[in-house]
């Protein structure tokens, strides 16, 4: 199964300005895709459409054959809860909750947080922040917070991870750490990852790079350094 974009057009404002120009693309399960391009080229806009947060003006996106814009609110939220993990540039942890409680927000929504507690601790441990588990976000560094946010995105074992410049606010060391984590879960857990980044070095770590320029896909070049896990059709 895959995420398939068919003639995806996105326009904003009145008179409408076209931000995405009839994009066709396909992201297969287990792929690690990077979306790159200059600022304002439409990277975030594309990611939001792929990830059910936004709808295309024309064309459609099919996730495993289903069009999210035709799902009910309940279905969308269930899908987000069970199948999707978001990571943003700003970590967006709830300041009143400890690191562990933040990670368990998704399971809590499904009333399975007790079952998931051990796994959440394991994730925090993997990312080197197990000792922060009972601290509030304000008591942690930016890099630690971002790793907690990634643990939160992963705790439901989602099929898809959508990350919008997760390294944007981090220094090089923490940035590389986060990239390492993403590569690792893509390999180990076969999680499909869509990563928006404007850092060429990180973009190259992906199986495949979608390069946007003014809302057009210029190339979906295989960066070549690592072989794709699945061959794009």
């Amino acid at each position, binding site marked *: 199964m895959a995420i398939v974009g068919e003639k995806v057009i996105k326009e904003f404002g009145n008179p409408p300005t076209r931000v995405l120009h009839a994009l066709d693309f396909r992201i297969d399960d287990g792929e690690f895709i990077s979306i790159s391009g200059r600022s304002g080229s439409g990277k975030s806009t594309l990611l939001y459409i792929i990830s059910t947060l936004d709808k295309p003006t024309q064309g459609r996106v099919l996730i495993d054959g289903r069009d999210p814009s035709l799902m009910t609110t309940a279905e969308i939220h269930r899908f*987000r809860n069970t199948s999707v993990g978001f990571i943003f540039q*700003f970590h*967006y942890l*709830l300041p*009143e909750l400890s690191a562990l*409680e933040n990670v368990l*927000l998704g399971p809590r*929504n499904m009333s399975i947080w007790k079952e998931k507690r051990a796994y959440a601790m394991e994730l925090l441990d993997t990312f080197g922040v197990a000792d922060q588990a009972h601290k509030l976000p304000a008591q942690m560094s930016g890099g630690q917070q971002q790793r907690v946010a990634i643990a939160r995105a992963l705790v439901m074992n989602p099929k898809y991870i959508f990350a*919008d410049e997760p390294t944007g606010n981090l220094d090089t060391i923490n940035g590389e750490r986060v990239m390492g984590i993403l590569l690792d879960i893509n390999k180990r857990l076969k999680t499909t990852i869509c990563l928006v980044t404007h850092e060429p070095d990180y973009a190259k770590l992906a199986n495949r790079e979608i390069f946007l320029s003014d809302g057009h896909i210029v190339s979906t070049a295989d960066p070549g350094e690592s072989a794709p896990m699945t061959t794009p059709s």
Partner: protein
Amino acid sequence: MWFIAFRQMFSKKKQTVLIFLGIMFGTMIYVIIAGTQYGMRDYLTEQLLNNTAHVIITGNERKIDPVDLRERFFPADSLVNWIIPPAGKREEARLENPQGWFERLSADPDVLAFAPRLSINAILSRGTLRHNVGLVGIIPERHVQVTSIGDYMLSGKLDDLKVGTNNVVLGSGVMESLGARVGQTILLSTGLSEPRPFKIVGVFELGNQQIDETLAFGHLNDVQGLNRTPGRVSEISISLTSIEMSQDKAHNWSLYSNDKVQGWEEANAAFMQVIRIQDIVRMVITGAILLVSAFGMYNVLSIMISQKQKEIAILRSIGYGPNKILLLILIQGLTLGISGGFLGLVVGHFANVYLDNIDLGFKIGKGTSLLISYRPDIYITAIVAALISTTVASILPARQAARLTPLEIIRSNL
């Protein structure tokens, strides 16, 4: 949702406590004000002689009409004027046709009970002591159905009036000024008649000096006899199956005769006015307090939502739907509303119990402290008002929060 809601509430303790206190004070003050007002009102109501009667029929006093009197002596169109016009009562008030009323009332299915009375003035004397009272002739078993005087007997029963003839029940103040005891015999006179001996069979005390010093009850037949007016009745108190129909019934019946027929509210117009003013005062004070705390709550929740947009966005992206976001805010508002409201009830209740036990040093009703009512509807009204105001104050910001889409928030923050 509860978990997150409570965490958010406890993370801003000061605001939470302030809102909580505002709502608590609102309900507490309602309970205290309403408790004392209703307590006073119940007391005053019992003081009214017809307290539980819904309709009262009284005879019209016949006044001397100067024109009518002049026309008896001179032709109607003659130019004669009174130098000093005659004035005054021709006769004591009485019903024109009491028997007719009895028949009508007995036959009316809406009438629960009715009690005829004859009120006259009488002079009591015991040895050299004299005392003026209003003497009310009653039929005891009927009278207790339209008043609560039976609850205020210090000794004896109203029913004792029926044992033999010429018995009286006196107010405690009357007893005092005559220096009399129950079982003794005193003399009663209307002032026009020869004094007759009456036996004291009971004492009542309403707690209102003015009444306790000037009122006496006798059996209707005995009072009619003393007054030498057998069969005369000056008023009838009626209790209906439902108080709502009192005005209508009073109006209907008033068409049948010249007697004055008044519904409860009309008969106690001054009292009703006091009650209305009390109601308004209570509503205004409590309304103002609840309004202020509801506004406070609305503000705090609105501010919280605008500060927490990012968190709301993340919850939405994790799969918390709009309804759960609505719930998140509602829980916070309603928890404060319900807990603050209930604590207000409890604190208000105990404040009332405390007030109830303060010795004021003078007699009101049966005791010497404020009269407090613990009617359940006071508590129900207070908690309902607290709940309504907090629900409104939290549902508006909650719906606003639920409408936010995660994308708008994420975009505006990037």
